[in-house]
């Protein structure tokens, strides 16, 4: 087993055995339970008022709206997990005295950081994929609706959370545990707000707000990944159902261009470079 695998495995074990994972697990089970109840009720209520000709469109509108909301909830829960797994990875662990015994071993600091990232990213990816799949399964079981695309949005959702993992790791090099947690949550909020302003800009045809949304998408691309995933859930839905769907959480769902994906690759590289360089220079 290489040192990278050892540290990544250590991060995985830490995630599973610390109390924080139990808290996330309880929250997730509670969310999925309530979501199931809500989806079941929503389909019952909506279908009660539909006659035969509208049935299909009602199913699409309710199913897509609820899964869109579940997508946001999954992004939020995944972000909480990502932050808790990485917020104290460098400065916090160094202040607690758990980092020094590990980094004096013949594993480079950059390799150590990469391994921590891989471990946290693996946990978050499994979590996000699991929760979103469960949510989609609930919508399918309760209402018989399945999104137009499933794999790409799921992966984009996971990638958005992994991106937040990378930002949180970068923050952990500079900030104390609490400060980093607050900073990453604020970045998460800023990303969502930027996306929301972009949506409002689209609705009001305001170039300024659209520009704010676009710039935020480049500065914090997890929001753009989420928007693209959301868009893909109903990418092949047209007609009256599509109109209703756009009134819900899909109102401003934007398809990302190929340029954004290329930028995300560069972005992750820049975050890794900044984190690696700062960690290498840091006195522990």
């Amino acid at each position, binding site marked *: 087993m290489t040192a990278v695998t050892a540290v990544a495995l250590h991060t995985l074990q830490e995630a599973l055995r610390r109390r924080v994972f139990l808290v996330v697990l309880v929250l997730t089970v509670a969310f999925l339970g309530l979501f199931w109840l809500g989806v079941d009720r929503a389909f019952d209520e909506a279908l009660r008022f539909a006659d035969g000709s509208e049935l299909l469109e009602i199913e699409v509108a309710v199913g897509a709206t609820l899964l869109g909301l579940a997508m946001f909830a999954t992004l939020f829960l995944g972000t909480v997990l990502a932050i808790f797994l990485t917020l104290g990875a460098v400065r916090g662990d160094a202040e607690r005295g758990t980092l020094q*015994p590990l980094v004096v071993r013949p594993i480079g600091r950059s390799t150590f950081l990469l391994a921590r990232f891989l471990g946290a990213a693996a946990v978050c990816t499994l979590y996000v994929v699991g929760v979103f799949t469960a949510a989609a399964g609930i919508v399918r079981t309760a209402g018989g609706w399945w999104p137009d695309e499933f794999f790409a949005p799921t992966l984009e959702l996971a990638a958005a959370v992994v991106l937040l993992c990378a930002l949180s790791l970068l923050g952990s090099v500079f900030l104390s545990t609490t400060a980093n947690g607050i900073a990453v949550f604020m970045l998460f909020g800023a990303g969502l707000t930027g996306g929301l302003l972009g949506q409002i800009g689209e609705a009001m045809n305001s170039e300024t707000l659209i520009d704010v949304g676009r710039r935020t998408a480049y500065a914090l691309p997890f929001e753009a990944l989420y928007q693209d995933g959301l868009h893909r859930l109903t990418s092949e839905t047209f007609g009256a159902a599509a109109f209703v769907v756009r009134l819900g959480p899909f109102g401003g769902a934007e398809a990302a261009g190929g340029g954004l994906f290329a930028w995300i690759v560069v972005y992750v590289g820049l975050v890794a470079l900044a984190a690696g360089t700062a960690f290498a220079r840091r006195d522990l």
Partner: protein
Amino acid sequence: MALALAAHGVEKRYGAVEALRGVSLEVAAGELVGLLGPNGAGKSTLVKIACGLVHPSAGRVEVCGAPAGSPRARRALGYLAELFRFPGWMTADEVLTLHQRLAGKGADAGTRKELLERVGLAEARTRPVEEMSKGMQQRLGIAQALVGSPRLLLLDEPTSALDPAGRRDVRGLLDDLRRAGIGVLLNSHLLTEVELVCDRVVILSRGDVVAAGRPDELSRPRGVEVDVDGGTRAYPAATRDEVPAIVRDLVAAGEDVYGVRVLATSLEEVYLEAAGGEDA
């Protein structure tokens, strides 16, 4: 003798604060060197520079011939930090397994068992760290430092949480390591401990080496005391060589001699003098 650790003119500045001002010291293979000094003298900074945890502002440090912080240097050393902590959810065996993997030595269960036996934790192999006493955690820290068969051990206050029996065990362990040719730099506040086990002592004060040498070299003669019928007679200027003549004269004068003590300054006195008196 090959050098396990060589520091040449090491300086470290934290902004306006000079933590180290050109410190040089050497630890040979199989030598046990005690690093003493008051709080803030720069002891832990020096040890951290040797580990590669802190970057020096000037000077150089080599571990077994390799620059401090390089992979070759890291492979050659074992380190126990002053303020260390292992994750509470890990068992003693898991802590050692992780360090074996990081040291690139493979997770050999036999070696782990041997290490835990060596520090008296054989029975606590599967006990989570959060259920261990502070002393047990310190023993585990020492076992962790020994993972990977290091040629240089950097121990920062390794016995601070141990009871007297634990300290005696560690002294025995340090003796074994010395016999095995491992160089040890022992940073401690426990002067008796250092006096008992160390071959040489280096005293730091305000980032400078203010005294260095064998404990017996550092101490100064403080005269001779002789127990006779009427009490104790002091000869403050006398040396060890003069003891036979003093005893001869007393016996010739009809005194019964019950005991003779050759006095020398203790390491504590040497330390207080070198490190600047009571503040140390």
